[in-house]
Every structure is written in structure tokens, then in C-alpha cells.
């Protein structure tokens, strides 16, 4: 390493005679085989996503509490280092570097957005850390941006869309309109959905894309109304989603619709803001809280005890990520990230989200996807899972663009 530094220095400048004192910068990780296993969590602590970040940390906390109460992994304690970012990839990257090189973290979790993951994936190998992505759904993360050091715990967008497309017959409505964000996700979702709709004998009467951060959906909603559609497939996130739902309500769009199907549009943290106008809306759901398995019950009980509220998909996926990580360390018999990564390949783990397998070719965790419907329950709004679709259907093979 020292020699390469010298080579680099001399290659570009005047030749210098320099006493190479001290070690050149090349530290990675702490001592991997002794002491606690360190996991750095880097959730957004500001921005519209802060709520999700906090909840993700809660999921990790519960998992770590349980494993430490059991005596740790192979007798070693697990330690969480909770950091924060503003969801700007540059900040996240800086915090990740700090956590790995300064604090000796070997694993990273709770990173939120796909751009952050994209930036992080590019650097993981150099950093020598293993990242668990339980939030960023972009397909590229297991495609051209994939990394052998990144485990994709959450379903990809295409898995979600495939699940929805597979369930299209369950939802009333013959003439569908597609309202999507003008974004990679929006376009690929629209394409998949359209093909499935046509296969199911339904008609797609309108397909339109609004730029990200659209505030006024008036023009789009007017077009939807004029199209004669009786069902809408909407791919709008965050503030865009809220604006769309709110303005659709003002335009009385719901009167002519039998079904509103959202992709990532409606989720538990938004229930209060969106209000009762969304009762009856369909949306993809990443996690079935009602799943009747041992692991899930244990999770819900422990989580509710820790945080005083029931979990939804964000903490559930974080918890699943933790369980996969712990299984990997046990399998490898080491907490060296490279060895854990190797051990995880094609490993099957029993988690709160069911029995899942880490696909060796792209590190995608193979798990079910669900279609949910918003219903009014005792404690306010909730999702009722209508159908579930297994990974055999939603993702048949890994993206050839991903090469480890």
C-alpha cells in the first residue's frame, strides 16, 4: 500500500524523496474477531423520511436486545451505533466512513433512500463493511449498482409491482388509468402493471407521469376524470402522494372510481395525515403483521413491549435484517464482513417475515409480497392483507447486470 501511494505521488508530480513516516491511510474496520459486534445505523434524522428512520432503528434495537439477552452471538455481544444523516448521499457516505474507520463498525443498517444505497454500495468493498438494506427498494440496487457487500432485505419495487399485477383480478374496475411519478420506478411499475392488466383482460385507458415533487395535480386529475377510468393505479410517494390523494378528494375523483391501487403511496405513518378518505384504497404491503408464525409473534410481542406501539413494515424489515445478519455470523463463525457475506450466500433463515433465502447471485432476500386494503379498525386505520405472492412469482431470476 505504501508503495502504491508513493507510485501515485511520483506518477503525477515531480519526483520527490520523501521519508515515509507513519503508516499510510489504509485502516478498515476494527479488530473483527474480538470484542462486541458493532452495527452502525445511519437513518435519516431530518427530512420527510425521519419518521421511517426512527422506526427502523427501533426494529434493530428490539432484535439486538433479544439476541444479547440470549447471550449474544457465539458469546459476543452485539452493539448498535446509532448515527444520523440528512439523507444526502454525500452525508451518509461520510457518516458510514466515520463509523467504519473510527468506531470500528463492521455492519451498516437503516440507510434509507436508494440514492444513498447507490453511493454506499460503490464504496462498501473498499470500506470492508457489510450493509443491510431494509428500506431502499430500487431495482438497480440488485442490478447494476449491486455489491457483494450489500444484502437487499426489502422487496424490490419490481417484486412489489409483480405482486400487485398478480392480484389484479382481485380488484374491481375494468378501465384502468395509471398515474405514476416520472421516475425510474414509476415507469417500470407502469409498464409491468399495464402488461398484467391487459393479460387479465382489463383496459388501460390513460397512462401519465408527473415529475417528482409535483405540488399541483389539478391537470392530471382533470385528465383522469375525463378519461372515463373506473380504477386508478397510482405510483406517487411522500408529499407527492399526499398532495395527489388530497387533491383527488377535492375533485371528487373517488366518485367515479371503484378501485384506487397505490404503489408505496399509502403507508402506516401517513394514515393520520391522509385521513379517512383513503379507506378502501389498495396498496402494496411489505409485511403481514397478522402472520401466524412463532417468529412473528415473538417479534410483535417484544417490539410492543419495547416501544409501546405495534410494528409495521419498516421496523419489521429492520428486525428481519438483524436476524439474517445474526444467522450469517453464526454460519460463518466469524464477524469478518467478507466471511459473513460469503456465508450468507444461499442461506435460508427463519425470520419474522417468514422463511427467507438470500439469493447468492445478487444478495436479494427472497420473501413474500402482499396486497393490502385500508380498513377502519378499532385503533384507527389499518391494512388488511388481501393476497400474498411468493418470491417464485415476483422475482424469477437475478438481474444479469449484477456481477459479483
Amino acid at each position, binding site marked *: 500500500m505504501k508503495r*502504491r*501511494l508513493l*507510485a*501515485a*505521488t511520483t*506518477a*503525477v*508530480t515531480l519526483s*520527490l524523496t*520523501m*521519508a*515515509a*513516516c*507513519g*503508516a*499510510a*491511510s*489504509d*485502516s*478498515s474496520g476494527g479488530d473483527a474477531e474480538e470484542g462486541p459486534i458493532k452495527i452502525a445505523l445511519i437513518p*435519516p*434524522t*431530518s*427530512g420527510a423520511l*425521519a419518521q421511517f428512520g426512527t422506526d427502523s432503528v427501533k426494529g434493530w434495537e428490539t432484535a439486538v436486545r433479544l439476541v444479547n439477552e440470549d447471550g449474544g452471538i457465539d458469546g459476543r455481544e452485539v452493539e448498535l451505533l446509532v448515527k*444520523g444523516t*440528512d439523507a*444526502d*448521499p*454525500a*452525508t451518509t*457516505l*461520510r457518516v458510514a*466512513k*466515520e463509523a467504519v*474507520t*473510527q468506531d470500528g463498525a463492521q455492519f451498516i443498517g437503516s440507510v434509507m433512500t*436508494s*440514492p444513498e444505497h*447507490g*453511493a454506499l*454500495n*460503490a*464504496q462498501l*468493498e*473498499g470500506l470492508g463493511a457489510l450493509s443491510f438494506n431494509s428500506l431502499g427498494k*430500487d431495482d*438497480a440496487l440488485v442490478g*447494476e*449498482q449491486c455489491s457483494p457487500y450489500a444484502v437487499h432485505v426489502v422487496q424490490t419495487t419490481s417484486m412489489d409491482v409483480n405482486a400487485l399485477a398478480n392480484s389484479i383480478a382481485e380488484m374491481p374496475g375494468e378501465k384502468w388509468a395509471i398515474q405514476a411519478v*416520472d*421516475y*425510474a420506478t414509476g*415507469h417500470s411499475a407502469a409498464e409491468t402493471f399495464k402488461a398484467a392488466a391487459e393479460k387479465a383482460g382489463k383496459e388501460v385507458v390513460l397512462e401519465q*407521469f408527473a*415529475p*417528482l415533487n409535483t405540488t399541483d395535480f389539478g391537470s392530471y386529475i382533470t385528465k383522469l376524470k375525463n378519461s372515463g377510468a373506473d380504477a386508478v393505479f397510482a405510483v406517487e410517494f411522500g408529499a407527492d402522494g399526499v398532495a395527489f390523494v388530497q387533491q383527488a378528494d377535492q375533485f371528487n375523483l373517488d366518485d367515479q372510481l371503484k378501485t384506487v391501487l397505490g404503489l408505496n403511496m399509502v403507508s402506516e405513518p401517513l394514515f393520520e395525515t391522509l385521513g379517512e378518505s383513503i379507506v378502501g384504497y389498495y396498496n402494496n404491503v411489505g409485511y403481514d403483521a397478522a402472520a401466524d408464525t412463532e417468529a412473528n409473534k415473538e417479534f410483535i410481542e417484544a417490539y410492543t413491549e419495547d416501544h409501546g406501539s405495534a410494528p409495521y413494515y419498516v421496523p419489521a424489515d429492520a428486525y428481519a435484517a438483524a436476524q439474517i445478519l445474526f444467522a450469517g455470523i453464526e454460519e460463518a463463525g466469524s464477524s469478518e464482513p467478507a466471511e459473513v457475506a460469503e456465508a450468507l450466500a444461499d442461506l435460508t433463515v427463519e425470520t419474522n417475515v417468514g422463511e427467507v433465502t438470500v439469493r447468492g447471485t445478487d444478495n436479494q432476500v427472497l420473501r413474500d409480497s402482499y396486497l393490502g386494503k385500508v380498513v377502519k379498525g378499532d385503533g384507527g386505520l389499518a391494512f388488511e392483507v388481501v393476497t400474498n405472492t411468493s418470491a417464485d412469482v415476483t422475482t424469477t431470476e437475478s438481474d444479469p447486470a449484477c456481477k459479483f
Partner: protein
Amino acid sequence: MTTTAPTDVVSPSAAAPEASPRGRLKGTLVGLGIAVATLLAGLAVPYVVTDTYRMSLLVEGTLLSLLAIGIGFLARHLGLISLGHGAFFGAAAYGVGIATTNWGWSPTTAVGFGVVVGTGFAVVMGLLVVRSSGFGFLMLTLALSQALYALSVQTSARPLTGAHDGKLLSYDRDMTFLGLAQRDVMNPGLFWPMAWIALTMCATVLWLVGRSRFGTTLEGIRENEERMRFSGYDTFGPRLVAFVLSGAVASLGGALFAINSGYVSPDILGFTRAGDSLIAALVGGFGLLVGPIVGTFLFVYAQANFNFGGNLHLFTGMALILVLVFMPGGITGSLQKLYHRLRRGRR
């Protein structure tokens, strides 16, 4: 709105005039000597700072400094405050990403291409904005750089820029950037020499340009644009050239930034990024060449240490206001004033 009130922010340094050509030459040689010494001393940094994280902060500060001295050059010599230089920084970064990832160019050529792209944008924007001055210039540079942002996140631009997803740089493992493979360019210790040499070279070039006859012409335009025209000088051309030059320096920063981080996010063209660099340069002070550099390193330090809960902009906003109200001229400007006062006091 034809009044151009004197701007303390960009008040020139009251440097001792060097009347004789010989004194000027001597000054130039001394300056070049300092530049070479700084360059050599800086190359030893990775041997002193052995910690990867701190080193990566230094590299980031150095690359962002290129952007800041570009902004500072325009402010110092033309009195023009730009909120648009982030566009050149970002365009160059995207240029590198496109050339490597889409076209399979070698990273070294791609950096050259990136600089050309960034500079090209500077020419286009310059043609539109250098006629204006003062506040108009500030607003127009902001608006046009935001236009570039709006274009970069368009879905039709996706194959090139990756739209909102950003662009991950990828090139063959056997391709190198001046001898460094992709893994190594991300190692701040190994990348440091490139960044440091780029910064010292650009700073030296800008300093020499400022001292040249062209620099005097720019000073004349800054002081009294109309009288320059009535003295037979073209004022559009020199302004454009200076604008493009400062844009080129920012572009070099952006191109190296892209290579180093391996990823270009659309935030690079965003509103806050443009503001951050300007604030950093301003807090450091425009009066001296090193002012923006001092400010940028301070900013990177603050960003790494005071960004709790996303409150960084609460602090940078406050710093901006405090500096503008109480110490126009920034940190270096105030130090300079203090120095002059002490010297005068001793006499």
C-alpha cells in the same frame, strides 16, 4: 437601479502597491516560491494524517475548495457574486460519469471531458448573464443553474444522468485514473496528491491571472464598467473570459469529485449545494485568494461535526448573517484588517 453601492464583501485587499516592474517580478517569484513550497508540504499530509476518515474530509475540502476559489475569483476581480457555479461543478461530475459509464472511456480522459463539459456550460451561461451585474447576476446565475438541475432529473435524461437515482461510475477494473484503479481512487490517502496538486495549481494560475494585465483590466471593469468602455475597453469579453475561467476551475473540482466518490447525485446541482459553497467562500472572505479555501475547510469540518439532526443549515445560515453584518470581508478579511491595524499601530 443603476447604483452600485460599494460592496464591503468584495472590497479589495489594500495590498502595498508595487510600482516598479522589478518589484512586480520579485513579487511574482516570491509568490511562485510559496506556491511550490505549499504544494510540496501538502504532499506529505497523508503521511501525517494516517486516519482514513480525516483524510477523506481533507480530500473533500480540497475538491470543494476548487469550486470556492472559482466563485472567489469572480467576486474578487469583478465584484460578481455567483450562485451558479455549482452547475459547472455538477455538469463536470456528470460528464465524467457519462464518459466512463456510458461510453467506456478511461477515467483520465473522462476527467478531461468532464472539465470540457463544465466549461462549456460556463460559456453558455456566461453569454446569458455577464451583461448583468450585482443582484441581477446573483439571481440569474441561481435560476440558470436550477434550470440545469431541472433538466438533469428529467426522465428523458435518465440514460445519461440517472435522473433522481444519481449516477454510479463504473469502468473496467484494469482502467486507471493516472495510475489508480477504481478501488484506489476512493482511498483518500492515495487520491490526495491529485486533489492537492489540482488545488495549488489552480490557485496559482488564478493568482497569476489576477496580477496580469488582464487582471488589471478586470479590476477596472469591477471599479467602473462604464468608464472602461469610454476608455476604449471591451467589457463583455473580459467578463466572459473571467467567468469561463472560474467555471473551468469549478469544473475541475467537480470532475475530480466524481472520480473520487464514484457516484454523482443530483443534489450536486441543487439549490442548497450552490448556497453552501457560496456561504463557505464568503465566510472565509473574498479579499484574499486563500479566503474561500479557509471557509471551505471550515465548512467541511462543521458539516462533519455539527450536523446533528440536520441542523447544519441553521448554523450556516446564522454564520452567513453574522459574517455579513459584523465582519464583512470574512475571516481572512478581518485577520487582514487586524494585521494592518497592528502594523500601523507599531509605526
